[in-house]
């Protein structure tokens, strides 16, 4: 199944080189959890980070569905 992964802010560096913008589409097996996706891209899970699936809060153990949009970024501040 296909999901879209967006890595914001400094997490952008974990996207494959040559990625346009901050998103890439990924083929994943059924039953894939967010944490599987993160380790596949080398996003360090020990960092405090925020996970959104389709714009809503989600945990690393969330099981993904076809067409989900997963956005991940480090917790920091704006203003």
């Amino acid at each position, binding site marked *: 199944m296909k999901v879209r992964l967006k890595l*914001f*802010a*400094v997490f952008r560096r974990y996207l494959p080189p040559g990625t346009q913008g901050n998103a890439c589409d990924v083929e994943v097996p059924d039953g894939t959890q967010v944490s599987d996706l993160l380790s596949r891209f080398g996003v360090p899970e020990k960092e405090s980070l925020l996970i959104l699936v389709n714009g809503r809060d989600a945990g690393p153990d969330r099981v993904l569905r076809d067409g989900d949009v997963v*956005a991940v970024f480090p*917790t*920091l501040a704006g203003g």
Partner: protein
Amino acid sequence: MFGWHGKILRVDLTNENVSVEEVDPQMAKDFIGGRGWSIQYLYGEVDPTVDPLAPENKLIFGTGPLTATPAPTGNRYVVTTKSPLTGALSCSNSGGMFPTEMKRTGFDLFIFEGRAERPVYLWVNDDQVEIRPAEHLWGKTVHQTEDILLEETDPKAKVACIGPAGERLVKIAAIMNDKHRAAARSGVGAVMGSKMLKAVVVRGTQKTPLAEPQAMRELCKLVHSEVSRDVKKGSSLREYGTAYVPPVTNEIGILPTRNFQTGVFEGVDNINGPTLTENYLIRPKPCFGCPIACGRDTRVDDPLYGGEGEGPEYETIAALGSGCGIDNLAAVAKANYVCNELGVDTISMGVTLSCAMEMYEKGVLPESDVGRPLRFGDADAVIALIKQTAYREGFGDALAEGSYRLAEKYGHPELSITAKKLECPGYDPRGAKGMGLLYATSNIGASHMAGDLAYPEVFGVPKKIDPLTIENKPHLIHRFEDAFTVIDAAGLCVFLSLRYLFDSDVNLWPARLTKLMNYATGAGYTEETLLQAGERIFNLERLFLLKAGFTKDDDTLPRRMLEEPMPEGPAKGHVVELDEMLPEFYRLRGWDENGVPTNARLAELGLKC
């Protein structure tokens, strides 16, 4: 005294006279500093029903006890006055270099009174204070003004000034410092202009005396090392500035788009941090003593939008970018440079323009009044109209009154996205409901910095909370408003303090901040008494508003936020259930059902009505 100098500089502009006053140590402690002292003086000396542009209003620059100390980000000041835009309070905050230099002159506060007969500027060189003629500066831009002033005073001096907008009493005029930093909100620039005060120039060598300098240095070193460690791992603020935020707010569906008609912007990928860093960034820029360096030195080489300066920040990108339907970051940067040069609040400018755009597209604002078409996405119109606003030329004269008066003039006040007539910042509260309660209850109107619950609701700092629920938000907004009042009054920047000086809990226990305050002042605060001082300040500000004529009916939000469900995105279908949060908020604050502080609460805080 320690931390505080304990000295106020009073500037009587009518008689061109200055005087120095000592500060009562008990008042100093009870009201922390900066913003807290300022409301104490304003409430005591200014009738809250005064016309904000009359000589009887006072303009107060307030540094805090931690300004110009080793405290990381101890580099801020607050401008307090009655606002000509809202009729409520202004507490506009700015960093850069000016606040530190101001504190070094040996004064904690400058209080400007009356009105000069001719344009003047104030030159404070340690304890040498002069009111000098400024006719030669009147009409000059912010950058021209600063360049001339540094030549006539001291190249190492720091400058706060108004541009043409403040001179013309534009109600959304800012007070700029260090050319590119802004005490922007609430039209404080217009108050300064109404007093014929063009600029304040400071040069100081007085060190801030510290009660426990060794302990202070050790704690500051520890905090610095933690920040440096985190920055080394990868700091989004250092790398991208606050411009990293648009994709985040867009992802949760709260990025203001086309006058808050929706929270999802199709052009977001063109107006974000990486675009800024890759195309326009010269270098990150820190305020005085800050290890983060979220500021941006930028330059745009472009035939249409060429310019140089600092920024744009997130709020500017939201208000002048997505808010106006513009997805060209060079154009947003240029709009930002123009606002800074002429001294205009980018948030209010953007939201006033987007209000005009919506009215134009709905056919209620005639093109003949504007003098050109005014559709969402028209960056050239935005830039031209910013200049017209600053100079009150043509349609700019109407824009200069802010979106509420503009929309009211055309019979559609509901299209002004404001609270207490202050334009809403870059978080649509239908998707971040705590922010809705904040906008409705802040003492300056719709401000995100009055108690920024976007930290936990959007960014997960200190912890992530659900932005779409209303549970517990009254309690959290109460705590955040008081904590942010403390940060402002102490003279610190929120970005660092929130993360490193409070315990990692959403109730914001100020453990380290209390230590810093005590090492600086020796005043023996506990965490409770420090937060209580924040509450005291907030309540005195509230009393000022009530005496100015505000009622619970003004603790509200635009109709769009209350009644028009978000049309798309993760917050689709949501509105702000303000009427379900407000009564609980009043109760927690110790206010009656009309939002008036009870005698019991006032007595607890040592305030009299």
